[in-house]
């Protein structure tokens, strides 16, 4: 065996352990989940029932509601957050701005807090006799306390607000790093041509940020489709099921109600399908824009 063959063999040896672990902890469970989604029964007594679980999905009002909630969170929260992150990054990339470092840190700081910890803080800020209602009452902005967490609309609003607070700074970092890679001479040339700041933003900055918009919107979409910690700890899925997410429904089906692993696995494949669906759409949109 010559030196190059030996090196090749060593390369395989180096990647053997991680590959085995990824197969064991990601791909094997993925296949198991699919097999389980075709089975039904309680505990260990599962038997194959074909597509029964998937048919049940379509007529399960709780699943439909959790799907609806998850999509509402996704369709409102992700665009709001991405726009806000771009907005912040453009402002905070301005060289002449004072205290930039301070403002950047403030916006970023929420992203190092634990999801459970910040969820509990939001729960108390927005509780019926919580600090926000007391403040609003004291300045006479409202007559009655708003039942933030007990009203289906406001509960969704609080969840969207909470996720936006937690993740905007995280996404801003990606935009800031991309902005810093843009050659300043482009802007100088645009200034000489008399292009306004708004014009420069839409004609220069935004097109150059497109790959990062794609990256952050795909990762945020995947994250929001798996939303669990916040709704579990702020609203516990309530009121009614107004903030129940698909992930929490899977958790309830598996560990809270009488365990039905087969049906829970079928519900989990709904998330798999959604992740693939939205990723393809976003990549298609990204690719089309690239061609223009």
């Amino acid at each position, binding site marked *: 065996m010559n030196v190059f063959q030996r090196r090749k063999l060593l390369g395989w040896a180096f990647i053997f352990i991680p590959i085995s672990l990824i197969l064991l902890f990601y791909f094997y469970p993925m296949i*198991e989940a699919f097999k389980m989604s075709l089975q039904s029964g309680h505990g260990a007594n599962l038997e194959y029932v074909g597509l029964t679980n998937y048919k049940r999905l379509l007529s399960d009002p709780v699943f439909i509601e959790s799907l609806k909630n998850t999509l509402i969170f996704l369709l409102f929260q992700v665009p709001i957050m991405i726009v806000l992150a771009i907005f912040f990054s453009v402002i905070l990339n301005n060289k002449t701005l004072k205290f930039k470092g301070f403002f950047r840190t403030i916006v970023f700081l929420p992203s190092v807090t634990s999801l459970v910890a910040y969820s509990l803080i939001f729960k108390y800020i927005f509780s019926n006799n919580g600090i926000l209602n007391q403040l609003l009452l004291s300045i006479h902005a409202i007559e009655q306390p708003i039942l933030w967490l007990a009203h289906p609309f406001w509960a969704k609003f609080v969840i969207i607000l909470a996720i936006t*607070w937690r993740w905007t700074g995280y996404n801003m970092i990606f935009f800031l790093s991309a902005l810093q890679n843009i050659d300043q001479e482009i802007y100088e040339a645009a200034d000489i041509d008399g292009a306004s700041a708004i014009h420069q933003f839409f004609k220069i900055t935004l097109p150059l940020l497109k790959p990062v918009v794609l990256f952050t919107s795909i990762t945020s979409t995947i994250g929001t489709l798996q939303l669990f910690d916040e709704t579990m700890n702020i609203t516990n899925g309530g009121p009614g099921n107004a903030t129940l997410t698909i992930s929490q429904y899977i958790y309830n089906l598996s560990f809270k109600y009488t365990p039905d692993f087969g049906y829970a696995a079928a519900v989990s494949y709904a998330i798999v399908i959604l992740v693939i669906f939205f990723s393809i759409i976003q990549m298609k949109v990204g690719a089309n824009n690239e061609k223009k």
Partner: protein
Amino acid sequence: MKKNNLFTYIFLILMSIVFAFPFYFMIVSATNASVDVTKGSLLPGNQLIENFKNLLSQTDMLVALKNSAIIALSQTALALLISSIAGYAFEIYRSKATDFIFNVILTSMMIPFAALMIPLFRLFGKFSAIHPAIGFNSYASAYLPYIATAFLIFYFRQNTKMFQQELLEAGRIDGLSEIGLFIKIYMPTMKNTYAAAAIITFMSAWNNYLWPLVSLQTNEVKTVPLLLSNLGSSYAPDFGLMMIAILVATIPTIAIFFILQKYFVAGMLGAVK
């Protein structure tokens, strides 16, 4: 831009208040008695030490901190070692076959955790029968699924692209073995990359909630997020105690962030390049 500056500052100050308010609320409430928190006091009180004593006497916070530290440190050390070896090998010993496998591994990033949860639950049930140290309620059960992740392997491979391979040739001439090259040349050269990866991994391990909720069911092994969640769902919570618990849980990640801030930002840059 210049003429907008006043508005920019007003906007930024208002937004800073919004972003900082939950932190302020947490810190101030940690110094107040429960009844003052419910009254909506936004001024610092003198109950900080009392709340802290209650936290230590009424909850298993110290145990939870120890558990979280063991799990987060083990996960970080193992994940860094395994992923850096893989990221290195995928780039340095590159071939068509390894590229193909790398792409297959990347698709695991699209798999949502909810879809893995029940099969993992059953898998660790089987592990319990092999040895309790890797079964349910073991520290290992909380971190094993995260020690090899496509994200971290991808991250190390991206950074290895910037590593100067001539250094390896020089090492080979000096008679270092292939493993020696990795340990004596690659690891020291890439210490910034390791530092950034360590922060990202430690934070996600420290804050992990859903899988520990499933895999760690006994009180002796409960982590900080599990303890917080239990406190938060009780019917008559002591708000002062609650807030100091949240504060204690948040301090480690914020401290790490401030100490290693420059690596953190550098690490994020590596991930998008």
